[in-house]
């Protein structure tokens, strides 16, 4: 019965999704049982005769359609929204995601251009949010990515991001970029 209730719960919350804690609370079960139920339901949905699936997106469990059925949805929806993010927006998001929390100036330094308007747009879209202020001079605003950002790219959590190290190769990342910003660029060795 609990499994059926869980299915209903996932339907009701829709795109908002459920956290493990919410499931435990509503069903009055412990974490182990909640995970067990989820896995069980997830397995049911993987059957070929089911049209939905449980996805873990942006730190929440959500009921979604299956990617394999996309062509039918295309037929159903006449004008699927094809708006995608611009190169500048993607770049800025990537920099914030891998360095959060980060100030706008730090983003500017990495990109080599000003990012103020893009950051404003990303905040408006809900992909990033303010997360306090840096201790640096002027106490600039720090930004971090949101669960909406993760969901937008189909990521479960920040751990799901492609590994930067592999792409960065042998570029040694500066430990303290904040201090580096306000120091001269001269290096001892």
């Amino acid at each position, binding site marked *: 019965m609990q499994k059926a209730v869980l299915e209903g719960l996932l339907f009701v919350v*829709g*795109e908002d999704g459920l956290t493990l804690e919410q499931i435990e609370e509503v069903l009055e079960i412990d974490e182990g049982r909640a995970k067990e139920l989820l896995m069980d339901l997830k397995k049911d949905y993987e059957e070929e005769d089911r049209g939905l699936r449980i996805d873990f997106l942006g730190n929440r469990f*959500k009921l979604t359609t299956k990617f394999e059925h996309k062509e039918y949805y295309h037929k159903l929806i006449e004008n699927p929204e094809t708006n995608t993010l611009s190169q500048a927006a993607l770049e800025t998001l990537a920099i914030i995601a891998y360095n959060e929390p980060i100030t706008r100036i730090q983003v500017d330094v990495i*990109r*080599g251009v000003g990012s103020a308007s893009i950051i404003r747009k990303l905040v408006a879209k809900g992909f990033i949010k303010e997360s306090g202020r840096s201790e640096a001079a002027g106490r600039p605003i720090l930004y971090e990515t949101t669960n909406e950002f993760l969901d*937008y790219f189909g990521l479960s959590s920040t751990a799901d991001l492609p590994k930067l190290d592999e*792409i*960065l190769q042998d*570029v040694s990342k500066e430990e303290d970029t904040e201090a580096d910003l306000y120091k001269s660029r001269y290096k001892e060795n």
Partner: protein
Amino acid sequence: MELDFKIQDFEGPLDLLLHLIKESKMDIMNIEIELITKQYMDFLNEQEKLNLEVSSEYLVMACELLEIKSKMLIPNNKDKVEEEEKVDPREDLVNRLLEYQAYKDITKVLQEKELIRKEIYTKLPESIKNYSDGDNEIHCDVSLDDLISAFQKYYQRKIDSKPIKTKVTVKEISVSSRKHDIKSILKNKKRVSFFELFPVVNKEYIVATFLAILEMAKEQEIKIIQDKEFDDIVCEAI
């Protein structure tokens, strides 16, 4: 090399540099700074010829390139012992290019993920009111008259809550009234010091009085005399 792309195609100077390096098939770890600087400057000049404004970030990078270029031209006369500790002037730029390149590469991964995610759908949350107990239902036994009287009460409250209009006036000092005053002063005194005509220190008063004096002088009603520089100015009736 023919450069037929626009600056708008680039996200910034780092993006432009990466493109130039790639086009010239250079090794990013060993940039031929002289060649790349020339290409970079040519590109900026081309933009200016097309009357396109080159944003300041591109110019900052141009300065950096020129600085690196000049540093590399200076022969290193220091002790050979220090050879190993010599910092390549390109090092900082190369690190920044590599870092930027990494994020640029990641955007490609993100873009793919973005498209895949667009192919799966979720739904909006159910309206919670479908699941509430129904206690909130309104039991409706009000008549149209009740609605009208409720509206009238609301309307009255709305009128009552409006701020009451009142007028706050400033005593106006007109040029003509000051002209009149000055005339009567001169009738009694014939000659009067310019400064005596400003007994009240108030902006409107001073402006009106000054204009009155100018107008009277123009209309040949008074004469303004100053014997020598910085002396008192005297107004005299004609």
